[in-house]
């Protein structure tokens, strides 16, 4: 496994963490946020700029960065969640745009568009990223199976009915959004640790849209679907890097192919690849058995 493949796996793991955070927001709680990249920016820049300026250990400044992401998420969510669903999307989108320009404005500390490159090299960064990814997947898996997961799915399908069973929809949504934004922040920090350079347009509006598209592609309610689609779709452009179809190097058309794939899913499999099913080996075995029985009879 040379560095190239390790690098790809790390990219996919970071993409999985991003998509899990969007999974918690959209699949569990039914909120549609287009500004998750902004939280990646906040955490990443705060962690590495503070670490350099105050010479603090990365672990400490990472905690500050995540805390700040959570705080910003809280500040956005509290006023906006009372309004209609569309407005939440618009506000988060506006917030994403604003964060990029704030980073450029504070260029004395963040070095603006040149990119912040004094990030220390962390040993065995690969295992840290893989371990964090598995932890985040475990985190989301447990959340979905706990009472919070049930309450979220309930409020996602029908808020009024959920309220009449004592679920405090407003505060639960805020709690879920804050936690998910911290996870996005975590993805930002790992991105910084892996690439060792962060630029404001690295966490752009397209990245937020990409996370939503990956989640949607994997299956609107299935965690395993989201994880597999995030892992696979992040690898896809790399696979196309050296593929030549009809004599034309596919490298230049990667984005086009990638989006056409997503459009096909939107049209012909609207609930995403796995829809609601949580694919897991035991369930697949059972499905196989059922199919065999059907063929025999």
């Amino acid at each position, binding site marked *: *496994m*040379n*560095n*190239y*493949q390790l*690098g*790809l*796996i790390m*990219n996919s793991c970071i993409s999985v963490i991003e998509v899990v955070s969007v999974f918690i927001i959209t699949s569990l709680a039914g909120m549609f946020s287009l500004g998750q990249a902004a939280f990646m920016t906040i955490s990443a820049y705060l962690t590495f700029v503070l670490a350099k300026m105050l010479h603090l250990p990365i672990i400490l400044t990472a905690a500050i960065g995540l805390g700040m992401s959570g705080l910003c998420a809280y500040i956005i969510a509290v006023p906006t969640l009372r309004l209609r669903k569309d407005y939440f999307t618009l506000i988060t989108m506006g917030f994403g*745009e604003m964060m*990029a*320009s704030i980073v*450029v404005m504070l*260029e004395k500390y963040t*070095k*603006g*568009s*040149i*990119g912040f*490159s*004094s990030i220390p*090299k962390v040993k065995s960064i690969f295992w840290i990223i893989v371990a964090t*990814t*598995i932890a985040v*997947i*475990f985190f989301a*898996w*447990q959340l979905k199976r706990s009472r919070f997961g049930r309450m979220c799915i309930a409020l996602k399908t029908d808020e009024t009915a959920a309220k009449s069973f004592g679920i405090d929809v407003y505060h639960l949504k805020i709690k879920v959004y804050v936690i998910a934004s911290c996870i996005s922040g975590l993805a930002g920090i790992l*991105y910084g640790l892996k*690439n*060792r*350079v*962060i*630029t*404001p*347009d*690295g966490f752009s509006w397209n990245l937020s849209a990409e996370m939503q598209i990956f989640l949607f592609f994997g299956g609107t309610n299935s*965690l*395993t679907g989201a*994880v*597999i689609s995030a*892992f*696979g779709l992040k*690898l896809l452009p*790399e696979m196309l*890097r*050296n593929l030549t179809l009809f004599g034309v190097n596919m*490298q*230049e058309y*990667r*984005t086009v192919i990638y989006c056409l794939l997503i459009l096909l899913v939107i049209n012909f499999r609207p609930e995403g690849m796995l829809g609601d099913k949580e*694919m*897991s*080996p*035991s*369930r697949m075995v059972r499905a196989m058995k059922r199919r065999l029985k059907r063929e025999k009879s």
Partner: protein
Amino acid sequence: MKKLLTCLLVLVLAFSLFASGAEEKSNDGPIKIGSIMDLTGGASNMGRPHSWGVEYAIKKVNEAGGINGRQIELYTQDCKNDITEGLNAYHKLVDEIGVCAIIGPALSNPASAWVDLSAEDKIPIVGHFMDEVCTTNPDTGAVYPYMFLAEPSCSVQSYDMAAYALAELGLKKYAVLYNPSNAFAKAHAEPFIAYVKENGGEVTAVETMGWADRDYSAQAIKITNSGAEAVFLCDYLAQNLISYDALRDAGFKGAILGANTLAPPLADQVKNDVYDVYFLQNYDMLNPNVGIINELVFSEMAATGTESPQCNVGFAWDAVQVLVEAMKKAKDPTDGEEVAKLLEQTTGVLLSSGDTISIDPATHRPNNMGMYIATYDENHNMVICGREDIY
């Protein structure tokens, strides 16, 4: 939960199976050189001619016998002016294909991620990422051992333009209009302002714009009212077009100075008439009897159908010459460390512009390359009108 983990591991293993391992670096077969360019993404209008130039130069070197008889295999990867893509491209070339040197892109963003990697993998990278961050460590000032720039850095270019304006044009009051979220523009604007202030000029206004902005009339009015005699524009061509028109529309009659992104086809695309425009040029492209830049540029235009001459072709040719000369001197051209040492002492390498280049070992940037100053005559043709050698 265990089920999900097995899922992930299955994916990882499946992925690693089909990816081929890295070939060792043999010492008599063809030499593998990588080239990382912006084939897609925001800067593809610079990246494509650059990539064409590298292929053309390598073809010419192979025809002339390659490096001491060994042919060169070129592998081009796209970095889409994005850091993650840049890293993928770098690792693909180094770990997967096993190249022993890389020709870098024209822009600095992706390059800033390779500074330490190139030292660990001992892969010399010769490129045109003019930003000092890519060749010297901004905090410590120490030079990155394997990063080399084959073109005057941004600040050197800005100093040249400022010196020309102060000395030749005798202008005192300057203004700058640039997009701070564009690394290329920021790396030009700040040195220009610094040089003007140190050398008796006065900076009357520094105005900015963002990627999403299209209307710069407010900035143009502010600059005109600030009494500036000249404005320095250093963004990409698309933004420079809008800035030029905004300034002329706002009634600015002074000189308009620029980096090499004010070159043609600016003159025939702006709406206002073109006068008093001075910009930097690495090469005297339209003059056939200076070096081979003229032949290079026009063969690229013939091959790819671009309408106007692209200086990036010259950059690509120069980078290849610098690298190939160093490799020819090395006993084992695939040994990165030896090649890097030789690159540090590059002197007298003939470039497409006709003059020679020598790289300063302390900064890994050329210390003898000046810049042409060009302007537009009445029928919008580019005319070289000056030369500055400040470094």
